[in-house]
């Protein structure tokens, strides 16, 4: 009896496994070689099947693109397939955005209404091909200046950069592009980062003399932002400002010693 039960269980397991395999046929990576005309609806159907999701491509599905790859073929699967579809849609000014449990192609100009809002920390884990909106807090950089610098670098349709208050900006773009734009933000932030440097008062001068000399000398210099104060010990001057400002003030104090 036990043997019979064991055999029945084995047979059942085998049947269940084979049924599961039939229900989930293996999708091979898409191989692209040579020259091909790709219809967006067909590409979307393949991406949907390979990733077990739904993709609504609406009118743009009829559009076609040329894909030329080496004869040795390149394989695409998973995120690479989504990226290929996203690139194909971009050629026709469409983007792929979340739509319920699946995805939908919408005109790029409307992307900002559909894309998820994520934090700066989440940018690191978001897939390259996904369009996102992200708020970036700025340190030491004016939001209008940063937005102005980045405005030319986002997609002509769908891409957006706008100041959000005085010390933050909002970017709507594809994740891989957002990462590139963050390089600009980080460089600007790093350059404008203020530090406090303590300078000893040169012999023969008072701290007030030196402070007033620095203030008077650099007062008219455009874009030269710093704060100077006398230390409570009376023998030092404290200057707060970014590195390039500190370098020039250090040279000025050297000239005072002569």
């Amino acid at each position, binding site marked *: 009896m036990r043997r019979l039960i064991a055999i029945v269980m084995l047979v059942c397991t085998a049947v269940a496994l084979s049924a599961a395999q039939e229900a989930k046929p293996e999708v091979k990576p898409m191989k*692209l070689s*040579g*020259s091909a*005309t790709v219809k967006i609806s067909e590409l979307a159907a393949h991406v949907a099947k390979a990733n077990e999701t739904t993709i609504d491509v609406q009118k743009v599905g009829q559009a*076609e*693109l*040329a*894909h*030329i*790859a*080496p*004869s*040795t073929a*390149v394989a695409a699967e998973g995120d*690479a397939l989504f*990226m*290929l579809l*996203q*690139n194909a849609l*971009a*050629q*026709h000014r469409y983007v792929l955005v979340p739509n319920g449990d699946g995805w939908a192609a919408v005109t790029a100009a409307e992307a900002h209404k559909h894309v998820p809002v994520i934090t700066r920390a989440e940018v690191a884990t978001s897939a*390259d*091909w996904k369009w996102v909106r992200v708020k970036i807090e700025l340190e030491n*950089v004016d939001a209008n*200046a940063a937005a*102005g*610098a980045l405005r*030319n*670098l*986002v*997609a*002509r349709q769908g891409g957006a950069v706008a100041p959000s208050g005085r010390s933050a900006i909002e970017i709507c773009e594809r994740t*891989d592009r957002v990462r*590139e*734009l963050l390089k*600009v933000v980080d*460089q*600007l932030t790093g*350059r*404008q980062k203020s530090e406090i440097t303590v300078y000893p008062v040169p012999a*023969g*001068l*008072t701290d007030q*003399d030196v402070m*007033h*000399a620095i203030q*008077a*000398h*650099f007062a*008219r*210099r*455009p*874009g030269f932002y710093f704060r100077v104060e006398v230390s409570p010990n009376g023998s030092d001057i404290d200057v707060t400002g970014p590195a390039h400002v500190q370098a*020039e003030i250090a*040279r*000025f104090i*050297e*000239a*005072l010693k002569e």
Partner: protein
Amino acid sequence: MRKFIAALLLLVPATMFSGAQEKPDDEALKIAGVMDGIPVVDMIHLAAEYEKLSFLFNSKTVTGEFTLVAPRDGITVPRDRMFATLQDVLAQYRFCAVNHGGTWVIVPMVEVCTYAPIVTEAELSALDESAWVTVMAPLENADANAVTGALRNLTSRQGGVIQPVQGANTVLICDRCDRVREIMKLVRQADESARLSTRRHALPAGADADKYAQSVFELMPTQFSRSCMVTAAPGGNALLVTGVEAIHSEIPLAIEALK
């Protein structure tokens, strides 16, 4: 066109587009004489095949033909120059290829700055000269608006961009890598020539340092006055002057004239 196809048939293995075999590494494309009416798409094929790249583009917009003129004896285009040649061909039609998520997409040049990777000045030397890039150049001395104005005419007419970043004294430059390298040389020269130094200049005995500072500043030529700072040195009969190197030779002359 026929000559070009004949050259392809002669020099590129018949298996090139069939995918049956890979070409030997040392193979190069030889072109000779005048070859006109070559479709742009053929050049894309060659770049894909020789440099193992994938291209995605709208075949309705990326169309056209070009002409190659080579010596009758022929010249060889190395396989690693095929992509650069494609970029030159695309530029004739105001298009360029940019890497967008692993695939090379062909986009109008006016939009390339929205795709071009953002790199540092140090990374420029290692990049392919025909790739489009955006570089951030922080300036130490020169004014970003002035540098932008001076160099604006030197960028590519379509796609080339140079813009100042307000408040950070930085310029952003987008162009082909070889062009950016040349522009960066000028940016660094401009920045160096605007380098400021601070020096102490002695005044005649008993002189009123504050009045001298005001007068000397007003005597400065206009090209210096924007970046020049002149103040009385605390506790001493001298002026402190910050400005470009050339200004320090002018100060003693101004002091002498005011005596």
